[in-house]
Structures are given as C-alpha cells and as structure tokens.
C-alpha cells in the first residue's frame, strides 16, 4: 500500500497512486461479484459532495438566532428541531445542540474515532480526524483554539464534548454584534462549519 495522501498531477496528466489503483481493483472485484452497484457508488459520492454539508447546520443556527421559540426547541430536543427543517437523517441521528454564551464556549471532538454530526455539517475535515486534534481537544482545548486563532475573553469556561456514543453535537455559536438588522438567510451565510464545531467564532460581516 502507499502512504500517498493525494494523487500527483504532472502537467495535467493524473498518475494514479498505488492506493488509487488498489481501490480500483477492489471496486472491480466487488462489482464483478455483484456485491455493489457502481451507480449507487456514484450516487453516494454525489450526495456527500453536493447535498450534505455545513450549509444545513448554518440554516439551523440562523433559525435559532432569529426565532427564540425555535432555539428553545433546538436546545431541548435537537433531533426533532433539526428534522423540522427537513435535513436528511437528522430525525434519527440523536442530535444535541449546545449554545455558546458570554460565559461558556463549547468545543466538539471524538477522541476515539471521528464521530461528527454529518446530517448538519457533512463529512468531517481532515483536521477534525487528525491525531493532533483528537489528542489535544480534551486536555488543552484553549491551545487548540489558539491554533485556530481564537482567544476567549476572560471568565469564559470551555465545555468540551467528547462524542463517545451515537449522540452528535452541534455548537450554536454566538450571534455577532451588529447583525440585528440581518434576516435569517443573510445570517446563515455568516455561520461557518468551524464555528459549529466550536473552533471558531462567528465574525460580524
């Protein structure tokens, strides 16, 4: 097997890595044996690349910022509140929403593997799955935040959520000052993936 993490690109010509060739061979074998449908594979990849992603979570946060009753429902039963917005799979995904405030900052990790709330955030970024993040988020969350350029105000407690079961955590970041006149659609555009994992704050536009 190869340690290559990406395919090399030489003057526009893709040279497949050893891993890419191994995957191709495995796929051909499984298709030949009738164990997988290649069209289903394409449909899955398309879903992850185009339909499931952090824009879903941003809609949830923007709704919570603008609709106090929705925020109350979200914090009490996130699975049901997220399902209200129609996001794929969220109804049964055991979601939990945790709210950042002036005194509490939340940060989500999975130290044992890479559990992540994919119905609202899509597939996790490489850093979330990295040994560096998984090891340090629980023992040095403020150091991890510094890696992301975040320094918390004095008096802010850090709450880390280690996703050790099938519950999946979504951080509801603080709404930035100066956005009072913005509507839900405009606010959703401000909400980043990283802010919903808890490694970033939402900046005012």
């Amino acid at each position, binding site marked *: 097997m190869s*340690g290559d*993490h990406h*395919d090399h690109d030489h003057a526009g010509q893709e040279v497949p*890595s050893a*891993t890419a060739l191994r*995957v*191709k061979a*495995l*796929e*051909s*074998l*499984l298709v*030949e*044996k*009738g*164990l*997988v*449908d290649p069209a*289903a*594979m394409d*449909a*899955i*990849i398309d*879903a*992850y*690349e185009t339909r499931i992603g952090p824009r879903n979570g941003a809609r949830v946060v923007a709704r919570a910022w603008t609709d106090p009753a929705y925020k109350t429902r979200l914090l009490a039963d996130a699975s049901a509140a997220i399902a209200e917005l129609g996001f*794929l799979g969220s109804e049964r*995904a*055991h979601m939990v929403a945790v709210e950042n405030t002036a005194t509490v900052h939340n940060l989500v990790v999975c*130290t*044992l*593997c890479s559990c992540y709330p994919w*119905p609202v955030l*899509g*597939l996790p*970024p*490489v*850093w979330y799955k*990295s*040994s560096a993040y*998984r*090891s*340090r*988020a*629980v*023992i040095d969350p403020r150091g*991890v935040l510094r890696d*992301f350029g975040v320094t918390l105000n004095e008096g*802010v*407690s*850090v709450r*880390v*959520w*280690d*996703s*050790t*079961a*099938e*519950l999946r955590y979504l951080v509801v970041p603080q709404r930035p000052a100066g956005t009072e006149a913005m509507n839900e659609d405009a606010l959703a555009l401000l909400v980043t993936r*990283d802010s919903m994992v808890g490694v970033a704050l939402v900046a005012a536009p």
Partner: protein
Amino acid sequence: MNGVHDMGGMHGFGPVLPEANEPVFHAAWEGRVRALSVLMGAWRLWNIDAGRHSIERLPPADYLRMSYFEKWLEALVNRLLAAGLVTPEELASGRKADGAAVASPPVTADMVTDIIAARGSYRRDVPGKPRFAAGDRIRAKNIHPEGHTRLPRYVRGRLGVIERDHGAHVFPDSNARFAGEAPRFLYTVRFTARELWGNAGNAADAVSLDLWEDYLDPA
C-alpha cells in the same frame, strides 16, 4: 482495548493544521472507499461498532501512519475477508474465483437517499429504571477490556457528575463482538478539567462524555 486510537490527552502530535477551502474528498479514491464502505455495510454482516473495532485493530504503527481513508480501506478489506465476501485469492488476482456465485447488490442508485438517511436509531426500550439521575456523582470504572469499548482511558477512575439521562442505547462493547445489542442506560457525564488533568486543567473548564451505565460506579 487500550489502543492507539484512544488518543484523548496524549502529547506529541503537534499543532492542529486547518486547511483552507478543503474539498470533501482529496482524491477520487477516497470517495470510492467511503461509498464502498456504505454499500458493503448494507449486506449487514457487521455493525457500526464492529466496523469501528476493525479500524482500532489495525497495527498501531499503521494506524498512526495512515490517512483516514487509508485506514477505512484497510479495515474494509479485513471485514470483507472475515465475513467471507471475498477470498484472499480473489483479492490477489482482482478477479472473481471460477464458479463463485454472482450476487445481486442490495442497494441500487435509487435507494441511496434513503440509505444515507437511514442512520438508524440506537435507542432501545428496556424494562427497568436507570440507576443514575442528573446531578448524581459517579466514578468511572477502572477497567481495561481487551475488546471494543467506548470508555476512554483518560476518564477511567475519575469522578464525574451525571448531566443527562438518554434512555437505553445499544451497548458497543457487546455489539462489536456480535454478542447482541445488550442495550444499557446511557448518560452524559461531566468531568472537571482539574479532575482529569490536575493542575494542567483550567479550573473553569470541563469535559463531557456519553457513557453507558456499565462503565460507572456511584460515588
């Protein structure tokens, strides 16, 4: 198992390195591995806990060296072999063995939306009442199961407080070894950073984990 996958609190892995404008997959093969894992899982010859355990059991040096999707690939191949879905000879040749049956895929493209949405519920109804309630003090057991467990080393033996009762959920320690779902009550448990890390922890901070009743003693 006390494996390298149980990373909470380890030192030496360096800074976290975010990547600007990161793609969903960094190479086409990563998406193929992800899709193959979903579709081979649909044969229901293993479960999510057994899948995680197959990754944890990769040789430790390989686990640390490989990228995320390289680990997925290696563990998938191991699961396919263990389940008898492919033979070592077929993997070596890349061709179906002569005379081997041709199956019919359980998932077709039109079913993909439902399959992705069908991440099942892990909550189960069980008789009996939870032993703990919010506010109760507990101590995480100092146990070292050789099989799969979701009790990380860094909380074993530590004092915590029950934050929330989630009802009974499938118990990974049992499910991963195909010994049944054996649902147990599940709780969110809060530990102070000082309790976990001594003076290296900030007095204002805390870590919460979701832990099954079997992992906890009253304190």
